[in-house]
């Protein structure tokens, strides 16, 4: 029983009683008094429980940051406008602290017309269920897009790409924490750039991306967070027909990078140079992540060994076939059944690699081979985009082939890091997939903006990474929602998120850092809201009618009734 019905019932009973008494009290003015009773009762009920009215409110114009002043000036004078706190200072419209309060002030709003960058993160929930249209305002100047990996391996080569808007002839510099230039790039006509850099040692690093104009003045400085992790001990086994300078350089790189390297290089029939042991049976192959063979050692394998290798690849082993000399036809056929179909091609042995040392490109040698068919994925490309190595998947494992003979020239010319980076990519692509599923790297958060962290268990806490003695912020993870918790970062910098089982680092940007990125995020967020709106679910709101008029009417009617009652004389 709602209060309205209860009130109505009470008043109805009282009215009936009063009407009965009026009828039976035998005084003058009976009929008017009788008629006024229900009128007064109804008015009282309406004043206490006013009815709802549905009404259509005009679209609410929401002014956010970087709104176009021309559009603002062109707004009609009767438009309903709400300015958000991040709108520019010179707006004369009514300011609201957030969208929710603006919507409460203008009830019944069903459409929003957002001018400027878009809704901030705190307003995204308030705008749900409304039809949103976005009119982007002034384009931000500076860095607007940034795409960088959150985690790289130590010593690896990585790349960072992004877009600059509103600047002509800008130049990008990436500096590490010691203020050395790690990479630089020129911005192209569209404003896009790609910077290549090499990671140093393990740890958390914050690099600085500087946007410089033509006069070499720094226009913007954006911190780029990067977590450099250590590699893993991949188990590589090499069975080669002869020792090779390439294998020696690979062994050196593998030992420096912490890989578990075992090799058997044949010297003569039955005599080999051994480093560890490589057994080509099921047990031995299960203990390897990558097996490297060349055509000579393949020709020397017996049928059971070849079958064991094929089965191991199906189970997940990675296999790299090196073509170091002329490829005999039976070997080529067997490799084709493994998945790599190589044919002789009339190409020059000298090839320019896609790397240069000291400004000069590095020239290496390759076997005159080419791939037949389209199933293999190129792994290493020359400077003219011809493949020098390729791989294909087979079962759970991968089979790759490389016919570049002396990639170690890169190391001989002085770029041992580049040599290692290229081979680390090859090994990482082909090796057995047995890494742990790591928690996905987290994009940087921003101070004051709500951020959802998922995959947390109990007792999860956030502390600033550089100052572990500060009081930790406890996060409340919702186990029913994949262990997600909401978090409002208060401090900028690296934050350490820890729960009972895992630890992660999240980088938090300061509120005024990288404004271009913030405005791009806001525009994307608002456009996503605008795209997801479901017109059928928009409920036209209703609001109760104002009580004032009803109360005044009741007052007047009750006063009249009272006057009548007072002047009623007994009938004689």
């Amino acid at each position, binding site marked *: 029983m709602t209060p309205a019905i209860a009130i109505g019932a009470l008043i109805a009973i009282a009215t009936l009683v009063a009407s009965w008494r009026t009828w039976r009290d035998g005084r003058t003015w009976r009929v008017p008094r009788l008629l006024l009773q229900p009128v007064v009762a109804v008015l009282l009920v309406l004043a206490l429980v006013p009815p709802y009215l549905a009404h259509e409110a005009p679209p609410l114009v929401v002014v956010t940051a970087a709104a176009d002043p021309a559009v603002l000036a062109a707004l009609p004078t009767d438009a309903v406008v709400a300015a958000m706190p991040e709108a520019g200072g010179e707006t004369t419209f009514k300011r609201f602290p957030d969208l929710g309060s603006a919507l409460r002030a203008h009830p019944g709003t069903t459409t929003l017309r957002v001018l400027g960058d878009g809704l901030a993160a705190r307003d995204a929930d308030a705008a749900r269920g409304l039809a949103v249209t976005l009119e982007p305002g002034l384009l931000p100047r500076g860095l607007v897009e940034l795409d960088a990996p959150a985690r790289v391996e130590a010593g*690896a080569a990585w790349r960072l790409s992004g877009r600059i808007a509103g600047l002509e002839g800008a130049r990008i510099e990436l500096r590490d924490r010691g203020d050395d230039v790690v990479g630089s790039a020129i911005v192209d006509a569209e404003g896009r750039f790609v910077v290549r850099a090499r990671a140093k040692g393990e740890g958390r690093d914050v690099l600085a991306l500087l946007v410089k104009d033509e006069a070499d003045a720094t226009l913007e400085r954006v911190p780029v967070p990067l977590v450099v992790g250590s590699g893993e001990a991949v188990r590589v086994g090499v069975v080669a027909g002869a020792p090779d300078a390439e294998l020696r350089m690979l062994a050196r790189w593998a030992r*420096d990078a912490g890989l578990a390297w075992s090799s058997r290089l044949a010297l003569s029939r039955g005599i080999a140079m051994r480093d560890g042991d490589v057994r080509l049976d099921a047990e031995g192959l299960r203990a390897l992540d990558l097996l490297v063979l060349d055509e000579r050692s393949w020709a020397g394998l017996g049928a059971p060994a070849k079958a064991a290798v094929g089965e191991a690849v199906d189970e997940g082993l990675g296999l790299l076939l090196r073509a170091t000399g002329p490829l005999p036809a039976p070997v080529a056929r067997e490799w084709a059944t493994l998945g790599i179909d190589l044919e002789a091609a009339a190409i020059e042995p000298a090839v320019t690699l896609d790397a240069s040392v000291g400004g000069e490109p590095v020239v290496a040698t390759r076997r005159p081979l080419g791939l037949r068919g389209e199933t293999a994925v190129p792994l290493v490309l020359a400077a003219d985009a011809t493949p020098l190595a390729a791989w294909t998947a087979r079962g759970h494992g991968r089979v790759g082939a490389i016919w570049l003979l002396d990639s170690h020239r890169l190391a001989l010319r002085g770029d041992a890091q580049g040599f290692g980076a290229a081979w680390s990519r090859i090994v990482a692509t082909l090796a057995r997939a047995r890494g742990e599923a790591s928690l996905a790297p987290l994009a940087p958060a921003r101070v004051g903006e709500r951020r959802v962290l998922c995959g947390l268990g109990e007792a999860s806490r956030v502390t600033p990474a550089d100052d572990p003695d500060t009081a930790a912020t406890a996060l409340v993870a919702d186990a029913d929602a994949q262990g997600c918790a909401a978090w409002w970062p208060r401090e900028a910098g690296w934050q350490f998120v820890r729960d009972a089982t895992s630890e992660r680092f999240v980088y938090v940007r300061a509120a005024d850092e990288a404004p271009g990125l913030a405005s791009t995020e806001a525009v994307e967020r608002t456009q996503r809201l605008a795209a997801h709106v479901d017109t059928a679910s928009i409920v036209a709101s209703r609001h109760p009618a104002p009580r004032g008029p009803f109360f005044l009417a009741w007052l007047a009617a009750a006063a009249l009734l009272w006057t009548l009652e007072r002047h009623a004389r007994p009938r004689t």
Partner: protein
Amino acid sequence: MSAALHGRLAASRRRRAAIVVALGLAPVLAVAVLAARLGGATPTVVVTLLGFVAVVAYAIAVSLRIGLADIVRALDAAVPGLEDSSDLLLAEPAGLTGLAHLQRERVAARLAAARVDVRRPWPAKTLAATWGVALVAAVLAVTWPVSPKGAVAPNSTPSPAAVAETGPTRLVANTLAIEPPAYTALPARSEASLEARAPQGSRLRWSLRIAPMPETAALAFHDGRRLELARDGDGWRGETTLDASTLYRVEVGGIAPLADAALNRLDAVPDEPPQVRVIEPERTLSVLDRAQPTWRLVFEAGDDYGLASARLSITLAQGSGEQVTVKESSVVLRGEGDARKRRYTHALDLAALGFAQGDDLIVRVAVADNRVPEPNVTRSASFILRWPPDLGAEASGIDGIVQKTLPAYFRSQRQIIIDTEALLAERGTLDEARYLARSDAIGVDQKILRLRYGQFLGEEFESGATSPPAAAKPDDETSNDGHDHDEHDGKPHAHDESEISAASHAGHDHGAAPGAEAPRFGDAAGVIAEYGHTHDHAEAATLLDPETKRILKTALDAMWQAELQLRSGQPREALPHENRALTAIKQVQQATRIYLARVGLELPPVDETRRLTGERAGVRDRRASLAAATPSDAVVAEVYGEVERGGLPDTAALEAWMRSHPERVDDVLGIVAAFDALRRDTACVDCRARVLDRLWPLLRAPAPAVRLRETPDAAGRAYLDALGTGEPR
């Protein structure tokens, strides 16, 4: 009766006064405690006394207000039996009439019998409240925390010096007077900060004032040295010479250490050596082809503080081959310009030095600056002036020398032509015998020349002139007979070698010349067999290409003809042959390249069946592990890792490493200062970040590591299995 009333009055008054005093003492006590807390002893005493006096005076004043009338009224109210007539007791008994007197008697009797107390009762609640409030106020006044402005609080620990003023130790004033070395000619200056940048070797004088005055003061440098400061009035003085960049801080003894204990940095700017630029000559090696009177040298030198002397060292190398004599001398140069930049111009008199053709003159300038303990000297590169010798004067042997001797031959042939023409010109003045002798001598020269050239075609050469034609008559005739191709040219060259070798054996001391049977013409084998050995094989003459060989053979032919004519006293007929030989030799000289036979390296393809076979008894597998590289900068990585994790490592090993690798570290002092700041305040996040920033460039990039792909989950595995089933095995 009035005595009783008076007694009651007095008692009442006393009670009233006591109540007032009791009530008034409470606030007085509270105020006194407050005064004791805020002020000192004196205010407390004063306040207590004043308060007490005030309270007592007020009590007396209040108590005196009570009069007999109040007592009587109180009695009447208290005792009903008095029938409100106690005031009769105040009146004189004689003045009262009968009823009043009776009533008075009765009242007096009742009053005497009544046991009533008209004194004001103790106001317990008020008293309790007042004293409670006063006690609370007093307790609060006692235990209120002391504000840190230096107020004397009962529970603050006094400083060890126990002086009246205890502010933090700080430098009130400091001056650092810098006196650069005299030779730099820089003015002495004084800085108001403790950090400075001064030339190396400057004298630094500190003058500090520290408040409060310590017992001892010293400057502690980062490498452990200490400079004790001497007290001078109310300041401290010290001085030292700046030899290298250091960090230091001021240490005081006897009082608390300085509040600001950061390390201050002194940078020593070393004196750079002078820079020399040679303007003339432009090239390091200048080659003359004719005599030159002087050699002009122009240098420019610059220094940061001042130049001293410039010395030009001159070395003259004369002679060639084994007999080279070297003469050295030096000249002090005077330049024009100021002390910082000078230009030196000097013209070397080559004739005075004795510079002749074939000599080398090497000059080098050494410029010194005016640094005082020992000057910095910069030497420029050496500049050589060479006058190449006349190559025609060389009469060295030709053994093994291929290029150089051709021009000499060229000249010799020309000399022969000149000699022949001279002889022809003198024909009229000479007699027959002399004419013949001279012609023969020229012929011998031509023969020697021919034999020298013939060496290129695989013929033998003997040094030394052959015997005069008279003694070699039979051979001469043999050669004459054998060379009947005077009449016919175009004779095949096949004869050449046998005839020439026969002729060349003319001077050979075989000892078989006389009495030997005349060699048959054209019998090469017979010739070889007769002389017992061969000296050379024509096939070995592979130095020249066939075209050059042909031309050379033409030249040799012409030379042979010329020699023939000359030897037989016909120089006029020899002249055209000589000219022909000259042109041919000139053509040979054009062919400057000597071609060696190049054999292309065409290895046969590897025969797999024969590979890797051989004696393998006792050959075992070899172990081939690479040792792990020990990085030389492991200490830097360790220290970096520990600082990043939040610890504070010991930096002794790091400093030793930095000292032994000065080329890796730019700014050792900066790192030391950053570590010191971190050590003083381990919780400072900024200091830690600065230490990490400074250590970062010292780290070497590690070898690129590999990360494994993630294990596919059930869906991934099912996908890969489904992919695999369609593939043919």
